[in-house]
C-alpha cells in the first residue's frame, strides 16, 4: 500500500511548523513518528495534501520537571519515555504505559504527542494521561494554551486541537511513590486494548469503553468515600456506553471494565 501523493516540508523549528501550517491550509498534517498517520494514509483514511515533518525537531524532544509537573516534549519517542529514569520515578504509570504501546520497533518511532493527537480511545497513552490528570500544551501563533486530558479528548479520534495548532508538550503531575495499577486486555500480541484500565491516586481511566478515554466516575467517588477496591470496581462500568465489535459486545466490555478495575486498584500490572 502506498499513500496518495503529497507535498513534504521539514519544519526547522516549532515556530516554522506553525508558519507552514498556516500557509498550507486545512489539508496539511503534522508528521512526527508517523506511526498513526502513515498507516492511515496507506489505507487512504487520511489524504493530506501537505505533510509538515516535525520529527527531527530536537527542541520538542525532551523530558524535564517544571515545579510540580513532569513535562515531556511532543516528539519524544515512546521508547525514550518508557526508558527514562525521570519518568519512571516521577510518573511510573506513564513510563509503563509508553512501554505497552505496540512493539519495540513502533516505540522507537512513535511519539507521545502523535499518539495523543491521534486520540484512539483504545490506545494506551490517552488513557494514561486521563488517569494521571495530565494535560497537553497546544501551541499556536498567539501563544500556548494548556488543556486537561478530560477536555482534550473530544470524540472518536477527535481532539480539541484547532486548525493551525501544534501539540507541543505533555504535562503530568509528579507523583513519586504513588500507588498505581495498569490493566490491558488483549487477544493478540501487540494489539490495542479490548478494554484497558489505568488507576492512580484515586483516579480511574478506562480505554475503549467509549469514544474517548473515560473516567470511571462512580468508582472514583466510591473510593473517595472509603470503599475498597472490590466494592469500587463494581461501579467501574456505570455510565459507560462502550461500542461493540468482533472482539466484545457491550456487556462483556462492561464486565471486563469491572474485573480489570479491581485488579488495577489492587495495583496489578499486566
Amino acid at each position, binding site marked *: 500500500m*502506498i499513500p496518495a501523493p503529497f507535498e*513534504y516540508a521539514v519544519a526547522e523549528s516549532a515556530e516554522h511548523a506553525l508558519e507552514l501550517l498556516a500557509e498550507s491550509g486545512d489539508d496539511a498534517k503534522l*508528521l512526527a513518528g508517523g506511526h498513526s498517520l502513515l498507516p492511515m494514509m496507506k489505507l487512504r483514511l487520511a489524504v493530506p495534501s501537505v505533510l509538515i515533518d516535525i520529527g527531527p525537531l530536537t527542541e520538542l524532544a525532551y523530558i524535564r520537571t517544571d515545579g510540580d509537573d513532569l513535562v515531556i516534549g511532543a516528539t519524544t519517542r515512546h521508547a525514550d519515555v518508557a526508558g527514562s529514569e525521570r519518568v519512571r520515578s516521577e510518573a511510573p504509570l506513564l513510563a509503563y504505559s509508553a512501554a505497552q504501546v505496540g512493539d*519495540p520497533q513502533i516505540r522507537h518511532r512513535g511519539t507521545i504527542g502523535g499518539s495523543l493527537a491521534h486520540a484512539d480511545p483504545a490506545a494506551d497513552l490517552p488513557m494514561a494521561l486521563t488517569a494521571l490528570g495530565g494535560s497537553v500544551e497546544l501551541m499556536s501563533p498567539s501563544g500556548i494554551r494548556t488543556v486537561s486530558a478530560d477536555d482534550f479528548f473530544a470524540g472518536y479520534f477527535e481532539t480539541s486541537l484547532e486548525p493551525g495548532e501544534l501539540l507541543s508538550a505533555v504535562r503530568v503531575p509528579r507523583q513519586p511513590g504513588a500507588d498505581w495499577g495498569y490493566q490491558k486486555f488483549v487477544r493478540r500480541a501487540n494489539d490495542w486494548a479490548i478494554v484497558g484500565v489505568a488507576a492512580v491516586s484515586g483516579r480511574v481511566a478506562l480505554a475503549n469503553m467509549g469514544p474517548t478515554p473515560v473516567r470511571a466516575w462512580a468508582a472514583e467517588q466510591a473510593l473517595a468515600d472509603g470503599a475498597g477496591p472490590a466494592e469500587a470496581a463494581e461501579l467501574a462500568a456505570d455510565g459507560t456506553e462502550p461500542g461493540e465489535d468482533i472482539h466484545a459486545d457491550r456487556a462483556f466490555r462492561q464486565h471486563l471494565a469491572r474485573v480489570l478495575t479491581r485488579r488495577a486498584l489492587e495495583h496489578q500490572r499486566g
Partner: protein
Amino acid sequence: MKVRLTVNGQDRSDDVEPRLLLVHYLRQHLGLRAANVGCDTTSCGACTVLLNGKSVKSCTVLTVQATGQDVTTAEGLAAEGDLHPVQRAFRAEHGLQCGFCTPGMVMAATGLLAENPHPTEKEVRAGLEGNFCRCTGYHNIVRAVLTAADAMASPSRADSGSPAIPTSTESAQ
C-alpha cells in the same frame, strides 16, 4: 525530493517521491531485498531494518524521513561475507523455516542485543514481539538470539561459530 542517507555504510543520494516508503526504496531503488514487505501495516516486522542502530519497520517510514540518517539492512550485517554472530546463531540453532520473516527477525534481534546485550529468555520474547513467524518457529528463534548473545559476549566463541551445532561449512573445515 532529494534525499541523502547512508545505507550499509555507503552514502546514497537520490531523488524520490515523498510518498516512497523506505522499504520500497531499499528493495526497488537499491536492490537490497532482504527486508520483505509482509503485512504492510506495521504489524509483522518482516521489513525491520536498523535506523541509527534502532530497529524500525521500514514499511512505515518514508524515505524522506531517513534523510541524513544511517540505515542498516541484513545485507549490511555480513561484512565482507563473514556472517554476523546473530546470522550465524540463526543458522546454527535452525532459527528459520521458510525464511520470510528471517531478515526482520535478525535485524530486530540485532537491535535488541545492542540495547540489551544479555537478555533473559523472557526479554528476548518481549523484544521480538513485533516480529511474526508464520511457521511459528519461535522457540528456535529465541534460542538463536540467546546463542548470539553468548557468542557476542565472548568473541572467541563467536569466531569459531556457534557452540551448539557445527554448520556444514565448519564441519568441512
